[in-house]
């Protein structure tokens, strides 16, 4: 009976948030222990490598670095130009968001729930609803914060929906998870809408949770049945949800300002001083 009461309290009211955070903090050592095999594997991967592989890697990275440096040169001038043009248009400057690297220390054992545990928590200024990205796209958002860890809901979880827009023409939609790690469903798109396989879906910023413009997924399949009002659209998430070990916590706008006390460890942000933190 008590358990049933607990269940109802947890599912229907948000009264147990604090309790959960406390229990999660207590359970943190178990995550550390469970992560040891992966640590060992990582260590072996880093330290036990052949010389030829290292040389090859260094070569590749040097090439990549050259390429990126070349692009970065242009970047500075383009950014300045962009700011000038925006000033001309009278809109607010879009400031790059602050990010912090977090490491994944656990995944949900239940295949139907797409939850991750990361090694940053309340101590590092993580807050509920904070978006996460990886190198390729949007990953998910924080749903539970403990002292040293936080739990992240992936965009592919069946209970998660992401407001998106098509990068090509700006059509807005909602992308929902369907329980498989490599698919998103885009619902309620009329059959006549201009959407094609290969279209990039980016976050639209509607709802104020995710910042604008991060890639969410690529449309893989569009089924238009004239008898149905809506097309059936599948997309593949851009982020490497089942592979990435490191994710980036994005600190957005005013909420980030109020929850973060230690600006020392945030990544360098040349464009945004304290004056221009109204991004998002």
């Amino acid at each position, binding site marked *: 009976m*008590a*358990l*049933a009461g*607990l*269940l109802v*309290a*947890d*599912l229907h009211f948000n009264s*147990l948030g604090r309790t*959960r955070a406390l*229990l*999660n903090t*207590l*359970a943190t050592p*178990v*995550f550390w*222990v*469970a992560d040891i*095999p*992966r640590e060992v594997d990582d260590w072996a991967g880093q330290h036990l490598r052949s010389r030829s592989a290292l040389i090859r890697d260094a070569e590749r990275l040097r090439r990549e670095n050259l390429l990126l440096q070349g692009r970065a040169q242009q970047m500075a001038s383009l950014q300045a130009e962009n700011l000038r043009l925006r000033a001309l248009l009278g809109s607010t400057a879009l400031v790059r968001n602050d990010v912090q690297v977090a490491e994944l220390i*656990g*995944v*949900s*054992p*239940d*295949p*139907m*729930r797409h*939850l991750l*545990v990361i090694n940053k928590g309340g101590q590092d200024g993580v807050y509920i609803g904070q978006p996460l990205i990886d190198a390729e796209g949007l990953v998910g958002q924080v*749903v*539970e914060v403990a002292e040293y860890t936080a*739990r992240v809901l992936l965009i592919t*979880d*069946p*209970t998660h929906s992401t407001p998106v827009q098509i990068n090509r023409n700006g059509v807005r939609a909602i992308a929902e998870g369907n*329980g498989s*790690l490599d698919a998103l469903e885009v619902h309620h798109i009329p059959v006549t809408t201009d959407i094609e396989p290969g279209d990039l879906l980016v976050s639209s910023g509607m709802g104020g949770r995710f910042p604008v413009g991060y890639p969410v997924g690529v449309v893989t399949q569009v089924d238009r049945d004239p008898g149905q009002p809506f097309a059936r659209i599948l997309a593949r998430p851009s982020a490497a949800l*089942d592979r990435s070990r490191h994710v980036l916590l994005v600190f957005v706008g005013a909420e980030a300002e109020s929850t973060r006390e230690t600006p020392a460890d945030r990544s360098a942000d040349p464009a945004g001083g304290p004056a221009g933190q109204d991004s998002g």
Partner: protein
Amino acid sequence: MRSRAGYGIIAFTLLVAAVLAIVPNPLWLQWARPEWVALVILYWCMALPHRVGLLTAAVTGVFQDVLEGAPLGQHGLALLAVALLVALLYKRLRVFSLWQQSAMVFLIIGMHQLIDQWVQSLQGAAAGSLLFLLPALTSALVWPVVLHVLRALRRYYHMV
């Protein structure tokens, strides 16, 4: 003195089971992960029914919920059912042969999975297929190992 050490051992085995329950698995093993915590609870309820019972099961279950980020009480209820069934059946379970025990484990863990699924569907994240029953099979398969390891532990520490 000795009995207190016994409780330490039980807590330790449950902790190990909890770690096994959240250790990352390869993707193809995702659906087949044995229910380690349920197996350990099942063994202790069968071997020492006067020590490990409903309360232990419920508390362990809530702890597992916290670990997995499930609604509090999901595994609590499921493990409670396991403990209840074993409390009714332990005399029979003890005299069963190993494969008969395994068959019973299959049924009991199956019940565990059904309750688990039922609570999860309340949250809107129900499995689309019957694959969620697969852990019942794998749990039955690893039962002999669990039984022998825990029995060896129990005999080594003279826990009664």
